[in-house]
């Protein structure tokens, strides 16, 4: 799946501005995470039509990139996520970052994973056959 990554300068109201822009574009945010440094932040979002949304944002002078990520279904119980991660570690997958969200229709827990090496992850997914969204 493709995630949208957006560069945000640390300026008052900038996050609200970009989120409002997404609302104007009628984009439904499925999941969101914000990484921040001293001067800027990287807003990462999962939406239904990432490519289309990227075009709209670029028209509005927002710096955005499309990043391949995996969205995995995780058993919604104690230790569910640990199980999944441990399996991935055994396959030599290195996680760059991760964030979680819940699908409201079926209360399904989901994690967005960005990994260091795409090929290793693909191989691991073939071996483990983990449920994806």
């Amino acid at each position: 799946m493709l995630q949208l990554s957006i560069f945000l300068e640390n300026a008052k109201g900038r996050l609200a501005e970009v989120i409002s822009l997404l609302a104007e574009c009628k984009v439904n945010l499925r999941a969101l995470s914000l990484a921040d440094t001293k001067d800027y932040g990287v807003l990462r979002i999962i939406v239904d039509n990432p490519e289309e949304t990227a075009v709209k944002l670029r028209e509005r002078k927002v710096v955005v990139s499309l990043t391949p990520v995996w969205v995995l279904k995780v058993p919604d119980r104690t230790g569910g996520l640990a199980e999944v991660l441990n399996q991935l570690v055994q396959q030599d997958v290195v996680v760059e970052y991760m964030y979680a969200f819940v699908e409201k229709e079926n209360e399904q827990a989901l994690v967005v994973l960005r990994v260091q090496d795409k090929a290793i992850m693909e191989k691991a997914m073939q071996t483990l056959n983990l449920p994806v969204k």
Partner: protein
Amino acid sequence: MDRTEEQWLEGLRETVDKVLPIRHYQESYGAIGIKRAEDIKSLKDFQRLPLTTKEDLRKNYPFGLFAEPMENIVRLHASSGTTGKPTVVGYTRQDITLWAKIVANELKRVGVTKKDVVQIAYGYGLFTGGMGLHYGCEELGAIVVPISGGNTARQLMLMRDFGSTVLACTPSYALYLAESLEESQISRDELKLKIGIFGAEPWTEGMREEIEARLGIKAFDIYGLSEIMGPGVALECPAHQGLHIDEHFYPEILDEEGNPLPDGELGELVITSIEKEGFPVLRYRTKDLTTLHYGTCSCGHVGWSMDRVSARVDDMLIIRGVNVFPSQVEEAILLEGFEPHYLLVVYRVGNLDQLEVQVEVSEATFFDEVRELEGRQDRLKKRIEDALGISVRIRLVEPKSIPRSEGKAVRVIDKRNKEG
């Protein structure tokens, strides 16, 4: 034209002759025993003459250094007076004709012909940029589009509709036009643009490559300042072997104490005009830093050439006792793959000067992973620090957040004085 020392002296003596009736020169030259032009027997004698500065022009504001009666003056130009009164220059009809011929000759050398359509996006008015190019192009017989600066959408529309082949403006505005073109409905294929004549602010070789690639043209550096004449004092040659100085200007390079430096050494450019009537200048300090070379170029030019102006003395920032030029930062930014939209902010924390360099992030320099983005930022920081010799803070900002300029770009905000 290859001139002997005696031939140069003849021209220089004529200029001395012209200014000697002016009180300012009478006094300062009299003080070192020069009463008549004939007292100058050699170039060494000439180099004893006191330098003329912008301050001298201000002291004699507005017309005190004119060498012709006002009835012979047909035009006035003035430089912006940001730090005081403007400096005013006057031209006789003959001066205007000479200026036009100089510019026309230079344009011809880089391939501009009477068939070209020249879009002059330099400011028109008291600033010499617009009018200087305008008269030169008319002299050449080219079609002039005197659009002046600003209104970028219209610039692009007319560039397409009129089939402009030559663009004249500041390099920073050329880059802004390129950027606007990429976002407009107009495609590069619809334009006939092939040559750019850019000047009035220092720019780097990297900036030239960027403009040439994005606009798909050949870009040439034009040099001039109103106190000497305006644009056309020198224009880059098609072989890119420096900027060839027109033979109506005698150049010297001086060190900080005003001592002459040999060819090839970096110093301040000082110019004396030859054959100029209304406002002849003698040993005028341009405050521009460059190097000089004398010789025959592969393009056929014989005489003086100067390197691209690397910096203006006035643009120099002194940060923690170190001399810093914005062009050094520009070079580093381009080498690290960032766009040349930047701003230097100098401020003080306690008693220590701080330099913050703001650089715009673009699709090409943005990465989803913070670690990678920070790595890029660190590499840029290191490159700038290596070039300047002081530590800097890099701040990545959003595209278009640094104001674009339609004339000379603002590269520095110095907050130290205000904060006391």
